[in-house]
């Protein structure tokens, strides 16, 4: 077989399917290294798992499955509670120890997957949630799949894939003060649109990415799915290695890199110094404007929401707290902070950030998906406006189709909360 230059995604798929190399467009069956599901999906998976595979069916490997309660805890109604109970049962029946129910050790699935060391470079990782693309921050293939896919993965540990085309997004230079990874990804989404990376890989390269912190890398990969990407990925850097050492206790990792002669299907380039804070207007994450444009429109907000797998990691809250420290949210604004996990929540407390946030007028809620997807608090009234650090602002995503959600970074969120209108 002639030598086909491989991207890092190609190499992960080749290894997982027992091949030397793969070609773009190939179909293959891969062994899955790690997978997870969360409260809204587990109940139905459990039901069909026993129905299809038998009442005494066992998962292929309980150590490679994680279960999270994040979308509907603490339960808002009996139905939500039944989801949690189904998960309790499944974890017990199948001896799944990587189980994070509501309590002292829970949080949003994607943040938890990284924080608890369930992501390793070179691995194939699947979740029943579209933002499973987050794990590319640690040089893994992470992707979201449907319930039918996961049902079979639970039983077999295998799933079929098509080797994707790869788009390179190269960012060089030093980001200006006040510009975050959120701004890079919003800029990219505005440029390529929501269909721009459909079914493809978005691979990030360049010196800006090499110097990015671990959690900022997570933000970038997390929102690649808003461009339709199958996965987002990047080479490891020192910050990512340090993060994983702490999370996993391991010293070395099986990292993968892209061959120098690999042919990207498309190349996109940004000079970091030229980037500015960005805002996505209702009702699409690719409906972006620069902060200068948004500021000129004096868009008044009723609520500022700091939360989600995109915008409530420790660094997001550090940036937000730093920015709002000593200031006060404008009168009449609901300022809601939802830490991504209990570990982050505890750290806010230990480092005194809780005090700073409360002094600024913020209400700190318990961790979880909450207002990010509109099912659990933080719903807006008609015509009301929210500036949010989340990832999607589709009509009604936050619970009311009559309201408008603007997406931006934690820094813009803090400045907006203080000013009362969108600003930097």
């Amino acid at each position: 077989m002639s030598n086909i230059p491989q991207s890092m995604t190609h190499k992960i798929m080749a290894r997982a399917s027992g091949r030397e190399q793969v070609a773009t467009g190939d179909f293959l069956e891969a062994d899955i290294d790690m997978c997870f599901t969360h409260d809204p999906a587990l109940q139905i998976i459990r039901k069909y798992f026993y129905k299809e595979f038998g009442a005494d069916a066992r998962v292929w490997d309980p150590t490679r499955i994680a279960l999270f309660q994040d979308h509907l805890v603490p339960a808002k109604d009996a139905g939500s509670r039944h989801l949690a109970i189904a998960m309790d049962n499944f974890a017990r029946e199948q001896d799944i120890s990587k189980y994070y129910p509501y309590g002292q050790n829970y949080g949003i699935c994607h943040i938890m997957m990284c924080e608890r060391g369930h992501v390793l470079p070179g691995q194939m990782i699947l979740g029943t949630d579209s933002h499973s693309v987050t794990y590319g921050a640690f040089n893994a293939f992470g992707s979201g799949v449907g319930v039918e896919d996961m049902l079979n993965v639970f039983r077999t540990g295998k799933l079929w894939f098509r080797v994707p085309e790869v788009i390179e997004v190269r960012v060089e230079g030093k980001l200006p003060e006040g510009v975050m990874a959120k701004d890079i990804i919003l800029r990219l989404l505005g440029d390529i649109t929501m269909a721009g990376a459909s079914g493809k890989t978005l691979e990030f390269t360049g010196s800006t990415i090499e110097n990015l912190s671990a959690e900022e890398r997570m933000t970038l990969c997390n929102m690649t799915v808003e461009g339709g990407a199958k996965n987002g990925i990047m080479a490891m850097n020192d910050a990512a290695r340090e993060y994983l050492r702490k999370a996993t206790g391991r010293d070395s990792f099986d990292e993968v890199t892209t061959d120098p002669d690999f042919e990207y299907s498309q190349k996109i380039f940004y000079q970091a110094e030229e980037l500015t804070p960005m805002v996505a207007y209702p009702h699409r994450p690719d409906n972006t404007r620069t902060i200068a444009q948004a500021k000129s429109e004096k868009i008044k907000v009723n609520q500022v929401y700091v939360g989600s797998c995109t915008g409530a990691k420790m660094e997001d809250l550090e940036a937000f707290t730093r920015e709002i420290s000593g200031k006060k949210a404008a009168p009449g604004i609901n300022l809601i902070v939802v830490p991504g996990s209990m570990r982050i929540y505890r750290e806010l407390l230990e480092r005194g950030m809780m005090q700073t946030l409360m002094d600024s007028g913020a209400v700190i809620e318990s961790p979880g998906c909450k207002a990010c997807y509109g099912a659990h608090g933080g719903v807006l009234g008609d015509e009301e406006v929210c500036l949010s650090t989340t990832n999607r602002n589709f009509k009604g995503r936050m619970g009311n189709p009559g309201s408008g959600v603007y997406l931006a970074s934690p820094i813009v969120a803090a400045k907006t909360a203080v000013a009362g209108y969108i600003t930097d």
Partner: protein
Amino acid sequence: MENIITGKAFYCGDFVDTDVMSPGRFEPFGDDEALARIALIDYEANPPFVDPATGRSPFTVIFAGEEFGCGSSRETAPMALALAGAKVVIARSFARIFFRNCVNLGVILPIIYDHPYDEGIVGQEVTVNVEGRYFQVGDKQYTFGDFGPLWPIINAGGLTNYTKQRIAAGELA
């Protein structure tokens, strides 16, 4: 699914979404009869995909443009096409979830191919030879990529059936 599929061609343009294939206003969709009847009902074409007189489609192979099946991930979309009578979609590209649903449900063979056809193809005879990996329109033959592990899944009638077959055959623990 048979190895050799023959039938008439239908054509869909770019970005035909799952709402057009099985519109939400018909939910709940009712039985198979009812779902077949509304397949591609919002895709304007003359003749339409489904013949209102029979409630079935005279077309077996759909040629499509880019991102066929984009939009929400409803499984009723490929089901509706299949129940109406389609067996193959040959598209320049598919939306990822729609493609996965076609295979996982084992109802439609989704072939990714940058074909040269447009509305003019409607009604022509097409032959698809799955194991030979080609499709034929008139005297023109086009070779498509290897389906690899996907063909046994589609053949088994979907992913879960395939898994059960493998377990029964002792291939999986």
